[in-house]
């Protein structure tokens, strides 16, 4: 399973998460969360095409609330 979406609780966290990943040269794009994702989310998530696991770990270490992961194909 290629879960390239990192689900976040709000747009503020999405912006914060993107900033952190930008600082670590990990490409990330803010987008709406797919409707059929089971985690109750904000409507925003980060699409991280590469190094997604590393990105998630980094965000958690930086205190960002990560709600879960999802596949991009489900959009």
């Amino acid at each position: 399973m290629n879960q390239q979406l990192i689900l976040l609780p709000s747009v503020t966290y999405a912006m914060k998460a993107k900033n952190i990943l930008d600082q670590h040269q990990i490409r990330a794009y803010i987008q709406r969360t797919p409707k059929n994702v089971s985690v109750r989310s904000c409507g925003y998530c980060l699409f991280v095409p590469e190094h997604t696991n590393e990105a998630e770990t980094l965000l958690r270490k930086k205190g960002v609330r990560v709600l879960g992961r999802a596949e991009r194909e489900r959009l």
Partner: protein
Amino acid sequence: MIYLDNSATTYPKPPAVYQAVGRAMRDFGFNPGRGGYERSLAASKKIYEARTQMKKFFHASDEASVIFTSGCTQAVNTVIKGVLHRGDHVIISSMEHNSVVRPLQKLYNAGYCSYSVADIGADDDETIENFRRAINRNTRLFICTHASNVFGTRLPVERLCALAHSYGILFCLDAAQSAGLLHIDLERDGYDFVCCAGHKYLYGPMGTGILLLKGEHMLDTLIEGGTGSESADPDMPSYYPDRLEAGTQNVPGILGLNAGVQLLSNIGIEKIYQKEMRLIRGLWRRLQEFDRIKVYGDFGDDSRSAPVLSFTVSGIDSEEVAHVLSKRGIAVRSGLHCAPLAHRFMGTSEGGTVRVAPSYFTTETDINILVNSLRKLP
């Protein structure tokens, strides 16, 4: 017009603020935190940048602990109604504004909580002792103005915060008059809540304010509504800032406020404070030459005062003094300044005072014209 009512709201705003508001209306007039299209995300990014700058400016712990409000009053109400439980007791200073007194009085009238007023002492030790004496087993919160909006009196808020914490009591700083003039450092000073007016000495537009949280307390909500997050849940989100920011945000206001704070960061608030204090000290000295004028407060000691000065003129009502000055093109504020508690404490409840509050844009010439006009009072 010579505008000396900056404690009510600063005017003019820096040109960058007008430009930011105009640009926000034109280029970022899309609902932030709602849509997935590019322009909505661009608006969200601008709000986030503003949040980041506020975090840095006040040394807050996290962007999420910066809450944008409609003003300081909403911020204070959010704290009071979000923190207190039935039976709680609050201590406030004798210099507080109605934005603090009225929400507490409403809760008191409903039998929900009680509050005590601790008088400002002749020195900081006495003020601290007055607060300490007012503590009881139900005391949950201190609310204290950083500087009086009427008399410019500064309170020993860092010591009061330490006192509160030593008893397990929360501390809320009312920074309506001080944010942008006096250093506020959440990390260093440990305030639990800081309430700021955006449109005063942060030079933002009216209708803006900030509530800064230390982040450990889950406040109850003041209003509920859409946040763009967890929309399927009928309850408000449990995380900040969404929990306390229901409804569409004031994008032009917030981006204007951000421009104001950016300017303050560039100039340095110490420089701004010193400039305004120089003007107020000069005015204070000159007014002492007037037999008929009584100035309240001592502006000889910077650590005890902020650049707001109140005076009365013997034999003329304060409203009349302000009216005469207004006819000469000078805008000052008379009356009780929404702070009857402070006037009661200073013994000026009867006729109020005339208040002079400069801003960074006030000049010595402005103050000279005021003094000359006072010489010509009937």
